[in-house]
């Protein structure tokens, strides 16, 4: 193994003089008086390796010795990851003893001694390749597949495989042989370098299904596809985190991976506390059972922040290879970009816009491209849907991280300060935001077929109402209430109906916080029906009180269980209000 000696230190950038070969992204350990600090090679010049240390470098001195590992930064994969709380390097936070995170303390991501009930899914003599399923163990409510390690290239045959029974992850469960007859005993553990995508699948079609999130402004107006990508840029306090938390609670996914990347510790604690208590609306089990939390809070070392999103993505790819629907949420990818910027500046690289590294757009689009809908080699579908939060500096969307992400992600949910200020949550701007999937023929077909006939048309009608309402509002603001035709006021108030009833959603109300798609369809159709009514008003002053009543009635419906007695009562009252002004 190559060894080295520390020669320079600038914050967490450490120069190491090496005595042998090193590779880009190789992991090394720096010995600081017996404490081993993990670091990653990020540049090599002559016999100097530039490393980014995943820990504080306080007290480090030139002359400290360094050992290289010949491995890149890897995740350790196997049963037992569900419900775990990891740091950015996949250390199990619950296994750490102290109140404080201790430098150089790395813990096992898996539980070496827990016992799993293994059922073989293949038999001796079968031909297999990387990613093929050898067997399965129940992990919480998931059938966790034990797979041929992704690192094994080429074809193998199964020499032997364990019979159904209880095993620890380190027990051998199968022996594979290659064409030359060399044997490879396998246990339930495998490793994967996080910066590389796992490609053990047959094909990656365009996403064609919708993934329900329970959030109306997304599902109804700009749906995200299963296996699709989206991002939520927004100034601070506009609701990115609340939106991600509510998606994580209600989305139609088998597994949720939450990457808290450079954000507040208290927000992660909220997940730690709530998820073990909250019910998964689909399975009735606790949310924590289908969740993995990766957290690198903002006060943890920045290099590990960059690693955290890759760790999360690699774990997502691992579970996707089992034929599961994985939802990956990262809050916030801007912090990851900032971590890259910090390192790039320390290495005195030529800076791009706003001092971010020149290759930022490429890094971001590579990352987003790891999401997607796939058919595995055995034909089973699996998916990673990815939604990233972006925190634009100064709330200005014309900054490098937002612009680069816009090129990579297919859904754009722009959170607006104005909406947040007027407490119209979720503050997703209905005019600026879009879902490219609404333009996919296969998605349109899916929506019309699965939600309601003519659904896409209804959605476009709603968008149109919103746009025309905004235009009318602008005119009213310029010309004054009585300076515009009455029709402008009608247009404005119709858009208010769509906005306040369909888009505005109370993230903290037990009923309203998540709306199943059937209910979303019902409410949209009801609102559109009212908007199509020909209502008569004598002057503009009559509209505000009248529409306020309509809005109140519809909001009461939103707070009731779908189709319960109260719901129907409010609906009847509402129709009576509509009748008051219907043209005779």
């Amino acid at each position, binding site marked *: 193994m190559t060894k080295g000696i520390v*020669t*320079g*230190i*600038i*914050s967490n950038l450490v*120069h190491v003089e090496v005595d042998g070969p090193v590779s880009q992204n190789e992991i090394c350990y720096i010995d600081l008086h017996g404490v081993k600090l993990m670091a990653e090679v990020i540049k090599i010049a002559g016999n100097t390796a530039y490393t980014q240390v995943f820990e504080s*470098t*306080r*007290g480090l*001195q*030139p*002359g400290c010795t360094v050992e290289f590992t010949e491995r890149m930064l890897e995740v350790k994969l196997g049963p037992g990851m569900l419900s775990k*709380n990891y740091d950015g390097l996949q250390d199990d*936070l*619950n296994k750490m003893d*102290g*109140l*404080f*995170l*201790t*430098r150089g303390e790395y813990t096992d991501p898996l539980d070496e001694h827990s016992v799993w009930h293994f059922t073989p899914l293949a038999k001796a003599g079968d031909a297999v390749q990387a990613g093929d399923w050898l067997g399965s163990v129940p992990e919480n409510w998931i059938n966790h597949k034990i797979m041929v390690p992704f690192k094994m290239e080429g074809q193998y045959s199964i020499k032997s495989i364990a019979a159904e029974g209880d095993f620890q992850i380190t027990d051998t469960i199968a022996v594979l042989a290659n064409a030359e007859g060399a044997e490879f005993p396998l246990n339930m553990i495998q490793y994967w370098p996080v910066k590389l995508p796992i490609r053990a699948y047959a094909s990656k079609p365009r996403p064609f299904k919708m993934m329900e999130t329970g959030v109306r402004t997304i599902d109804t107006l700009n749906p995200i596809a299963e296996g699709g990508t989206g991002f939520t840029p927004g*100034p*601070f*306090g506009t609701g990115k985190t609340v939106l991600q938390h509510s998606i994580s609670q209600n989305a139609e996914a088998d597994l949720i991976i939450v990457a808290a990347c*450079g954000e*507040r*510790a*208290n927000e*992660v*604690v*909220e997940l*730690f*506390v709530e998820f073990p208590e909250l019910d998964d609306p689909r399975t009735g089990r606790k949310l924590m059972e289908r969740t993995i939390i990766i*957290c690198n*809070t*903002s*006060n*943890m070392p*920045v290099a590990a922040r960059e690693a955290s999103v890759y760790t999360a993505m690699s774990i997502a790819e691992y579970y996707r290879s089992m034929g599961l629907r994985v939802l990956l949420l990262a809050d916030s990818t801007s*912090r990851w970009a*900032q971590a890259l*910027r*910090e390192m790039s*500046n320390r290495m*005195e690289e030529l*800076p791009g816009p*706003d*001092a971010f590294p020149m290759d930022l757009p490429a890094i971001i689009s590579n990352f987003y491209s790891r999401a997607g809908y796939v058919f595995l080699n055995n034909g089973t579908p699996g998916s990673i849907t990815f939604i990233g939060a972006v925190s634009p*500096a*100064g*709330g*200005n969307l014309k900054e490098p991280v937002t612009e680069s992400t816009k090129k990579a992600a297919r859904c754009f949910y722009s959170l607006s300060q104005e909406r947040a*200020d*007027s*407490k119209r949550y979720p503050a997703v701007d209905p005019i600026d935001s879009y879902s490219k999937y609404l333009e996919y023929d296969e998605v349109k077909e899916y929506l019309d077929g699965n939600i309601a006939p003519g659904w896409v048309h209804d959605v476009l009608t709603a968008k149109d109402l919103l746009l025309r309402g905004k235009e009318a509002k602008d005119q009213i603001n310029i010309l004054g*209430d009585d300076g515009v035709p009455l029709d402008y006021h009608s247009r404005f108030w119709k858009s208010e109906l769509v906005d306040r009833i369909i888009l505005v959603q109370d993230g903290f109300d037990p009923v309203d916080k998540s709306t199943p798609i059937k209910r979303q369809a019902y409410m949209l159709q009801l609102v559109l029906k009212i908007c199509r009514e020909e209502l008569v008003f004598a002057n503009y*002053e009559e509209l505000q009180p009248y529409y*306020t*009543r309509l809005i*109140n009635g519809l909001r009461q419906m939103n707070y009731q269980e779908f189709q319960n007695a109260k719901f129907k009562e409010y609906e009847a009252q509402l129709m009576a209000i509509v009748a008051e002004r219907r043209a005779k």
Partner: protein
Amino acid sequence: MAGTAFQKIYTKLNQITKATCTVTATGVGYEELATVSGRLAQVVKIMGNSVTLQIFSGTEGIGTDAELVFFGKPPTLKVSDQLGGRFFNAYGDPIDGGPEIEGQEVEIGGPSVNPVRRKDPSELIATGIAGIDLNNTLVTGQKIPFFADPDQPYNQVMATVALRTKADKIILGGMGLSNDDYLYYKNTFESAGVIDKIISFVNTTDDPPVERLLVPNMALAAAEYFAIEKNESVLVLLTDVTLYCDALSIVSNRMDQIPSKDSMPGSLYSDLAKIYEKAVQFPEGGSITIIAVTTISGGDITHAIPDNTGYITEGQLYLRRDTDIGKVIIDPARSLSRLKTKVMGKRTRADHPQVMSASVRLNSDAVNAKTKMENGFDLSDYDERTLKFARDYAEQILAIDVNVDTDQMLDTTWALFQKYFTREEVAIKDEFMQLYWKKA
């Protein structure tokens, strides 16, 4: 901070800039402290045997033959109960004429709390100020800044808030404090008769700016001692964080780092997060709450300092002089305590969240009405009523000098609702209407 035995001493500097110097030395650790001609300095860069130090008080008059003494350790603070009631400079040395502190020596700027060892903040902090208690309730373990114009009385407001809370310890981290403000705090604390629970680390405008960089971590190291060892609830006041950031940019500039937005270092987010994330609620009952002041110029919150702060803290409070009543209020429209939902209606009366949002909504209708009026449009009857409501609301509830408990704030707000609005306009859940809307 005195030196100890076995110190390495050098007397030949290779390079001197306005804030840093470079020396050829070996066996030096990163972030190690030293003195250069008696001035405190810290290692910020090591390249081979070339060691760069930042000299906190500046390099004026430092010669190439200056005596450089390495301490063999990073900045530390001695912590014990003796800290109570004392005033220190940025280095943790007493400035009140009292004796040195005896106690355990701890490194400042230490590691982060393991997130799984934190507790979800849930203890309410009462201040008697409605702009906080009613609209933006604070919680122990929270971190929140005041965004204030430099001419607003933020130090007075902070002192008021601090003294009205039931914190076990109040730790002041003063950065670039004017001497007058320093004396104001000192007098206010002394005359409140609570001096023993107050500890101050102060860098005034008379002191060199780079010294400020030590202040937050000194204050927070002391806070951690009381929160962890004594399970106390500790309130840390940091004022003014903008001046701290200015010092950061001075140092990074002197080290030829590429500045990012507004000439701030690219690491500003991480630098500030390391401070603010020390706010914590421990399961054993101890807590660290941080209330800071970030002065902003011309109300521009897109500037890198307030912008990064907003992305880190759990909300922000805006001070505003209400010209209608001629008093300072906490602006209900733009202020937000993000943790308020953890206690509102749970630790306070059940109608609290609804009353709060109704009053904020009606108040913002008043703001719209005002704009309408200024643009020369006619006001409707409703507009007129919102304006009257907003004025009473500011006077009787929001003004910073009002000091009442939350129940009373709620009752007064209900009375104002009823005075100016119909039930439909107030639009609060029926169950609360029945309880608090008085029958005529």
